[in-house]
């Protein structure tokens, strides 16, 4: 695919701000999205193991429903977090994303229904397990498999999008056009590496889980120690497996001595040490997020290199600066999002730490954050209508 074609596929409206900002936002939001993808798969996979132990083992009797719940909430969060990188990639890499999606149109259409099926079945699994201890095994396994299929499909779209030299051959092999939208590509090593990340992430999650519940008197010490112990084991095994797959992937691409991949390897070694010590899993999680950011950065480096070699440089995308809506986003993100999410998370933390009912009205932080959030939302609405009416009157009168 030559540069003139790739450049022609860019949107004629240009982009509303500097490309590097979209690139950074993409890297950040993909890392957050991926963290919840791996947590959901890890928690779900482990919960299925738990359903087999739940009847006879007291620890798994407590842990399994919590893992199911974790996976269930993580799927919702990964979906909403997934919207952001999807948005930002379409701003600067629209040729890649749209070609991949048109070539895989049937998969793209099916993906949504497969995801709905997998998630609805997850709820079924949740209710079945809630009703009967050890229940829902089969439905859990099917749901897990269906959600893995979704992951594989997303992998296929991403891989197709960075194969511009093969697009024409995928669309019209030997000059015969195929409009069916069934293009499917897989890069096994990359896929296994990414899926393998579910294991260390659920391991570190278990360390956090144990640490979080250690202050609750209604959970006994043996259970707290047990979950920390299996968390450590799972995380160490997972980190080693992921490291091997990562090195294999990098060797395949010739990126092993790239600064970003070296940083990832160093990050994994630090994680291994921290996981083994398990002094403070919350700090381990911060390091894990940094490694996730590095992995996201590496994905972007690979894509950037592929595209710039073909003459498509995202930094050359024409900019049509758009300030008012950018200001709206920044203020909403920082102020409304900041206060709102801080309120919800503070509340969730305190509810989780409390036996019985948590009285938020007597908690200064929760009360203030709640009042601020509501106040900011009302102001946001007032500004929205004032802005809209000003524009409208200006344009029609």
């Amino acid at each position, binding site marked *: 695919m030559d540069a003139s074609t790739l450049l*022609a*596929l860019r*949107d*004629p*409206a240009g982009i*509303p701000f500097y490309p590097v900002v*979209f690139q950074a936002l993409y890297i950040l939001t993909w890392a957050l999205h991926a963290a919840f993808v791996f947590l959901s798969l890890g928690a779900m996979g482990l919960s299925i193991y738990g359903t087999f132990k739940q009847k006879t083992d007291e620890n798994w009797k407590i842990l399994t429903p919590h893992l199911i719940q974790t996976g269930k909430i993580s799927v*919702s*969060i990964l*979906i*909403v977090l997934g*919207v952001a990188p*999807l*948005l930002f990639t*379409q*701003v600067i890499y*629209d*040729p890649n994303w749209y*070609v991949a999606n*048109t070539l895989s*149109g049937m998969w*793209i*259409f099916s*993906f*949504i229904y497969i995801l*709905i099926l997998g998630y*609805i079945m997850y*709820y079924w699994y949740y209710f079945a397990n809630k009703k009967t201890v050890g229940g829902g095994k089969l439905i859990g396994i099917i749901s897990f498999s269906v959600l893995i299929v979704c992951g594989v499909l997303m992998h296929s779209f991403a891989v197709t999008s960075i194969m511009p030299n093969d*697009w*024409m051959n995928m*669309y*019209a092999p030997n*000059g015969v*056009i195929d*409009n069916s939208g069934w293009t499917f590509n897989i890069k096994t090593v990359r896929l296994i590496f990414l899926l393998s990340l579910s294991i260390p992430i659920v391991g570190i999650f278990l360390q956090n889980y144990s640490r979080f519940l250690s202050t609750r008197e209604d959970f006994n010490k043996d259970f707290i120690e047990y979950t920390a112990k299996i968390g450590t084991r799972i995380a160490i095994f997972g980190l080693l497996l992921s490291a091997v797959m990562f090195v294999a992937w990098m060797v395949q691409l010739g990126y092993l001595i790239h600064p970003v991949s070296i940083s990832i390897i160093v990050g994994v070694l630090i994680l291994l040490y921290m996981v083994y010590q398990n002094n403070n899993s919350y700090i381990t999680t911060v390091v894990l997020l940094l490694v996730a950011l590095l992995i996201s950065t590496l994905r972007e480096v690979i894509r950037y290199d592929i595209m710039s070699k073909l003459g498509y440089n995202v930094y050359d995308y024409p900019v*049509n600066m758009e300030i*008012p*809506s*950018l200001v*709206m*986003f920044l203020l*909403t993100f920082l102020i*409304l999002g900041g206060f*709102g999410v801080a309120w*919800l998370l503070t*509340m969730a933390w305190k*509810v989780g730490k*409390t036996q019985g*009912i948590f*009285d*938020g*009205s*007597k908690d200064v932080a929760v009360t203030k954050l709640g009042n601020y*959030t509501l106040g900011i*939302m009302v102001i946001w*609405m007032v500004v929205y209508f004032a802005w*809209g009416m000003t*524009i*409208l009157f200006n*344009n029609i009168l």
Partner: protein
Amino acid sequence: MDLIGQFPLFYFPEYGSAWMMGVTGTIHILASHTSVGAAMLFAFLAYKAYKEDRVDLYPYMKRYGMFLLIFSYVIGSITGPGIWFTATAASPRGIGALIHNFVWVWATEWVFFFYEVIGVFALVYFMDKIDKKTHLKLTFSFAIASVGTLALIIGIISFMMWPGTDVYYATGSASDAFFGTNTFPHMFLRIGFMIMLSGVIGLFIASAMKKENLDLSRELTKKMGYISMLGGFLVVFFFMWYMGTLPENAHAVFNVTKDSVIQSRIILTIVFSLYFLLAIFKPQFISKPLAGIMILVILIGGIWPGEKLRESMRKPYVAGQYMYSNQIVSRDVDGKGIKSELPILAEKGMLKVNPFIPENLRVITPENKLKVGKILTRIACSNCHSLEKTGKYRPLQARMQGMDKDGIKGILYAIGAGAFPYMPTLQLPDEEYDAIAEYLESLNY
């Protein structure tokens, strides 16, 4: 080489790719509108429960919340990106145009969306775990956030119909594109519909509570009847305002089916008014099967045709009255530096400027003419029309039955000259028209 930014064509036989967007869109609208309406209803119930110390309302809210969580947020949150996914395959340049105009608006909506998704879990799972006052605040913030998502998406989907004034074309500003004449009426129309839907879903949940608490079930059934009636009234009222803000081409399409649309809307209004009156005056007659059937009636008889109509009325455009459904830029947008692609298509033809035409089809020969005609027809027509003889969605068969090549060519020339306001004024060189006409003739409509 002169190229335009057209992508590979994804083609879905018999129905067309637009139909696929329609299916996902209809499901999404049911789920998302329910979720926003339900969020407002939830806040109302929580306020009532708190102020009047009605402990009995909490189990209902819990059940409603669970339904909201599973139905609206599982299905709504997946089908939302789902429309986007399908649109990128079916109408990549259309969605690209929206994203490149409104990326920051979408990013802002994402903040609300994120808040909502965490909020809905907090709302449902904290109901028994936090004090009622804090929970009430949570429901209020959740309701405002839900309306916020509507406030942000509405300007984008209104722009799909048109920007309302010519100012946008000169400035290229997202604000001018977003706050068109159509935006606010569209917003209130949908708020009315959301309120009505929340009541309709509420009726289903209230009817399911009969066995546990008959008195509460009846009380809530009545309340939901009033709420639905209010929502229904707002829908009818704002629909009239909304229609008055549509562009000429929309009215041209609407006039074709005006009588049957009005007739079906009157029938729906009567049916639902009776249903809501029944809920208010004879709540004992509202059963779970009836309430379930009425949800289906709204989905199949209300949302599906409504969205189909809205999509039809946009024709021939898919975004901002500058992007045709068949992925061609049809006018200049000076504020963005966008140039119409119609002149270059008329001069050089699709075969030369579409980057994904295989080399063996770039020059028409007697051997490849039908193949060329086939791909040109698919590119130019299939976003809106089924091409097969048995096609289901705006089939060409119904429009070209029994016509020979010259007749078809005549229609193509008329379309290119702008004879039909709802068709793209796409002019192609004679040999490309000829290939299209020959291919269509070969289908023996």
